[in-house]
């Protein structure tokens, strides 16, 4: 990838924009020029930014988000090989792992609509109240999903921990999706268009369970 070029390509979740090398402020201005040149292409869309190995803090990511917002573009993900940047992005509620970021080096930069397969998203933290995770593919959470937190996945959801919040698998309509957890006692559980609640009384030692759709209903099997 040439330094200084901005690469844009279509992915399933929207657009992936690779910012290339250079100083952050300058790259943002270059991005803004792109946005200004093709307003109808970008407006109303959502963008994942690939920032490479840069170390970015909250304010810098927010700066990018604000810039995109001025052009009516939503920033939903930041892809970086820098752990500090990933952490900052995640804390701002952004997705940091598109599931295929490792493959991107070998791909051509092009404005196209190629669709790499949507893979799993692994999240190694606890989702607290008010935090929300959305991903079109499968989601694996190593941690808990607290009351008031929300996970929405196009595919399956696996939680290595406790589920107390709202989890929605197969959110793009797949009734074959499942939800597994070490301790599955969500406020509400959804698979595709179906909704279920946990039984009122939760007694005894929790056991790992899997929720699946059977005969048009969500059932839990252990």
């Amino acid at each position: 990838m040439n330094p200084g070029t901005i690469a844009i390509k279509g992915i399933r979740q929207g657009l992936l924009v690779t910012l290339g090398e250079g100083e952050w402020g300058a790259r943002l201005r270059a991005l803004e020029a792109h946005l200004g040149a093709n307003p109808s292409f970008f407006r109303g869309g959502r963008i994942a930014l690939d920032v490479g190995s840069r170390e970015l803090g909250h304010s810098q990511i927010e700066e990018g988000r604000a810039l995109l917002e001025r052009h009516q573009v939503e920033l939903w993900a930041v892809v970086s090989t820098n752990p500090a940047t990933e952490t900052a992005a995640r804390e701002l509620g952004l997705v940091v792992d598109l599931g295929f970021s490792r493959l991107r080096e070998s791909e051509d930069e092009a404005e196209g609509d190629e669709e790499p397969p949507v893979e799993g998203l692994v999240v190694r933290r606890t989702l607290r109240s008010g935090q929300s995770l959305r991903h079109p593919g499968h989601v694996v959470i190593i941690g808990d999903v607290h009351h008031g937190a929300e996970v929405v996945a196009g595919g399956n959801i696996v939680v290595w921990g406790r589920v107390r919040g709202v989890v929605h698998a197969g959110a793009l309509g797949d009734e074959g999706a499942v939800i597994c957890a070490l301790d599955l006692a969500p406020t509400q559980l959804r698979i595709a268009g179906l909704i279920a609640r946990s039984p009122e009384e939760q007694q005894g030692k929790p056991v790992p369970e899997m929720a699946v759709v059977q005969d048009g209903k969500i059932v839990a099997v252990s």
Partner: protein
Amino acid sequence: MEGRGSDSRRRAARVITITSGKGGVGKTTLVANLSVALAMQGQRVVAIDADVGLRNLDMMLGLENRVVYDLVDVIEERCRLRQALVRDKRLSELFLLPAAQTRDKSAVQPADMIRVCEELREQHDFILVDSPAGIEQGFRYAIAPAEEVLIVTNPEVAAVRDADRVIGLVEAEEKGPARLIVNRVRPDLVRRGEMLDISDVVELLAIDLVGIVPEDEAILVTTNRGQPLAFSSDSSQAGRAFHNIAQRLLGQDVPFITLREPGVFERIFRFMRSEGDGS
């Protein structure tokens, strides 16, 4: 958390914001008592009442009638910061920066709080910011200057959930790791399973615990009188708990108090008396 410098090499003040999400869990009471406890340890303390429009800390510290200028006066440059600080009449190293009562949260921006705390840091050891309840502007500016955050909660479901939400926001602001104080614990209710156990709360929130404060009638009486309980540390469990928190903040390893539960005989006695005292 990195080690603090020794006394010979005094560093700028630690800015600690005390917040909770839910209202009524005892933030202001805690700030009043913790300020007193730290000042009694010889620390130079400023307590900032960040609850603009609903100020209470001045009353709880018994300094209400000495307030001349306030936080908003400082921010809007109607006075110098020094002029707005109210020096405690009992502890010469304890100061209060009161909130404005006739204004609201929109009068303060996060940058204002950072500037005020920065100016105070040179002259003091601790700056305790008493955050308003909620997660809106008041919370935002209260958290802005913080280097450390104490989350106050009660052992009840609603308070713990709000605390969880706030911890998430604090982590997102890179102010973490937040530490936890469980306030208003009633051992009798915990024993009967009608109140969450401390270990339940810590497990739910998954952050470090720095204090357990039991419910204590004396708190109500002393705060109404403007004489925080921490002034008389030996008389009550709650008073001792405040001093323990202060010592832990100073890096001392103080064991958590085992909350005094009524003994078996006392329980039987109480049972026979029936619910006479309502406690």
